[in-house]
């Protein structure tokens, strides 16, 4: 059901727990057929927002529309949800387990078996169908947990920190699957605080901090709006130049190179000239796009 419309629409949603406001006046649009990154540091309100979308908790005020409707049991069955807090029934066999979760989403009949086999093959665990989940390694269990969220072929898939604790090979595997699902027209909400991961698969992002939205939009637009004001430098010497606050507002040293964020009004050409004049031996000097992480940190630390 990939329409050009918005799949999820939040309108001034607020949720409080006692004195604590977990989500404040949050409005956002998740466009159909795109990967939407819900980003923010721990405790920003990501999980609470997701729980309201999947109807585990209700907002105190504001409205949430799913596929253009208020949430009801039918729309609920079109969602696939992989929470951050997730597990499996330890003593249940993998096949039985997946069948159970499919049935809980009102997905019955013969196709269930077919889907189970398909997905197990996809994550390379077909021979584990009749094993109890307690016999599986942690990584295998995580892949099975992932299948529980997609077994009923949902139109909206919500993944809360899906890659945490996975090895790089499996991260790559799941990332591929997520992108395939997107190509198949599914809408995906992806929540994480790992910016590098988000950067690679998100089309749109929404950044939350302290219960509020910091910004929202397509990743492309956000990046270009920040401009190329960052320089990757690898050189010997020239420390005095890089440390000049008139030129470089922030310097992050990595193992063998440094990333310099240009100060407002500073010119990269001037920086290069000054470095050469200072006698530094330059091996690399490259204008780079700001990483999502940089944007994130800039935005979060920026005075409101």
């Amino acid at each position: 059901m990939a329409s050009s419309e918005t799949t999820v629409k939040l309108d001034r949603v607020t949720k409080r727990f006692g004195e604590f406001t977990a989500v404040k006046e949050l409005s956002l649009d998740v466009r159909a057929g795109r990967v939407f990154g819900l980003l923010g540091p721990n405790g920003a309100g990501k999980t609470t927002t997701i729980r309201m979308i999947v109807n585990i908790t209700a907002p105190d005020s504001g409205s949430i529309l799913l596929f253009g409707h208020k949430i009801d049991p039918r729309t609920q069955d079109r969602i696939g949800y992989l929470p951050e807090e997730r597990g499996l029934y330890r003593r249940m066999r993998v096949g039985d387990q997946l069948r159970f979760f499919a049935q809980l989403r009102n997905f019955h009949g013969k196709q269930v078996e077919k889907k189970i086999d398909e997905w197990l093959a996809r994550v390379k665990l077909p021979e584990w169908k009749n094993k109890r989940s307690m016999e599986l390694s942690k990584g295998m269990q995580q892949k099975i947990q992932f299948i529980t969220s997609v077994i009923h072929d949902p139109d909206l898939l919500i993944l809360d920190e899906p890659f945490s604790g996975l090895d790089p090979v499996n991260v790559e595997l799941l990332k591929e699957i997520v992108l395939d699902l997107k190509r198949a027209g599914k809408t995906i909400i992806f929540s994480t605080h790992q910016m590098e991961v988000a950067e690679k698969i998100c089309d749109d992002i929404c950044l939350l901090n302290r219960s509020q939205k910091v910004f929202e939009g397509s990743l492309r637009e956000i990046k270009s709006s920040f401009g190329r004001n960052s320089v990757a430098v690898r050189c010997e010497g020239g420390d005095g130049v890089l440390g000049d606050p008139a030129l470089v507002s922030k310097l992050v040293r990595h193992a063998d190179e440094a990333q310099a964020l240009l100060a407002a009004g500073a010119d990269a050409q001037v920086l290069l000239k000054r470095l050469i004049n200072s006698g530094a031996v330059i091996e690399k000097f490259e204008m780079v796009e700001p990483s999502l992480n940089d944007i994130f940190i800039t935005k979060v630390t920026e005075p409101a």
Partner: protein
Amino acid sequence: MKKFLTIVKREYLQRVRARMFIVSTILLPVVMSLFGIVPAIILSIETPPMRVAVVDQTGKMFTQLGRALSGDDADQRTAARNDNTVLRRASVNFVLEEVSAANQSAEQIRASLDQRLNAKQIDGYIILPPDFLKNGKAEFFNRNPGDVVSQGRLSSALNRAAREQRLIDANVDPGTRQGLFRPVELQAVKIGTGVKERDSGERFALVFGIGLVMYLAILMYGQVVLGAVIEEKETRIAEILFSSVKPFALMMGKLVGVSLVALTQLAIWGLAFSTLALAGARLLAGRGIAGNIPTLPLSHYIYFGLFFLLGYFIYATIYALVGSMVTTAQEGGQLAMPIIAILVVSFYLFFPVSRSPDSTFSFWVSMIPFSAPVAMLVRIVTQTPPFWQIALSLLIGFSSVLAITWVAARIYRVGMLMYGKRASIPEALRWARQA
């Protein structure tokens, strides 16, 4: 509804398929029948009869004692064969031998009998002095004074024999004698009906039995309900479930699923026991002992079933409520202790209610869901209360089950959102309100 059934199915199949369930289901009847059969086998092992010599200085007691020991009161045997001094009378496990006391001093007799005792020709001897019937004092010498069973039997047989002989000496004729000892019979008659209630004892036994089975079912399966409710917390599945199923459906599904497991097991055991009991009854009937199955109206059996279910569910939901508040089964076990206390107290109500089934007290305890199952069943078999009372009690009870499940579901959901925090009672109340 379909999701609710999915939950029920999972809870049921997971447990019934478990090795533990299969083993315990088979093992209990086996163990119980062993308890029934082994003592019977042990008791049936034949021990050699005890050989007892009787020195009857009264000259009248030997025959009486033999009769009393064999439990044989048939009159034709009164003319016993007392022509032989070494008359042997075989009773179940005594062999008596009369030793003539004539022409010998007491010391001589004792010396010779002691000799035979030491030579293991006899196992003991009794000396009945000439004034035995008057004083009622006799002596029993044996190698094994610790054998209280044999001594007890001997003593009571001697007592009966002496009584018989005294009556004979008092010239009471056998007919009068029998008349004097005929036992009385107290019969309970239910007023109004004019029907003789010959089986009220069995009815109480039946109600008591139902109460007991209920009690055992709760003890065994309360913990299972608790564990089932905590399972998703410990495995962190709750959040996935709640995105597709309502907490109430989940809670109810668990309760029903586990209860069906309990009923399955009880049904299997019930079947096994009734098979054994029928076999036992046939065995007893073969020996001339008739079993008494109380005759009750069909409606009573329906009530038994309904109140059994009510009793089971009301306590099972309390376990579910506890499960919704805690994070581990261990914590739950501690919190569940008061439940057992309520259960025991409600069980003791059996006695006051059976004494005055139509009192105000009995009415109220049969309306309170926690005591209703036992109290109402006692009332039904004693003075069946009006139908509206029974219906009201069931209505209150089953509504409470739903209400408690609903509250448990709310507490469970909020508790899950609070990330595995154990709820205090006031917190739980607040959660139930705010969820």
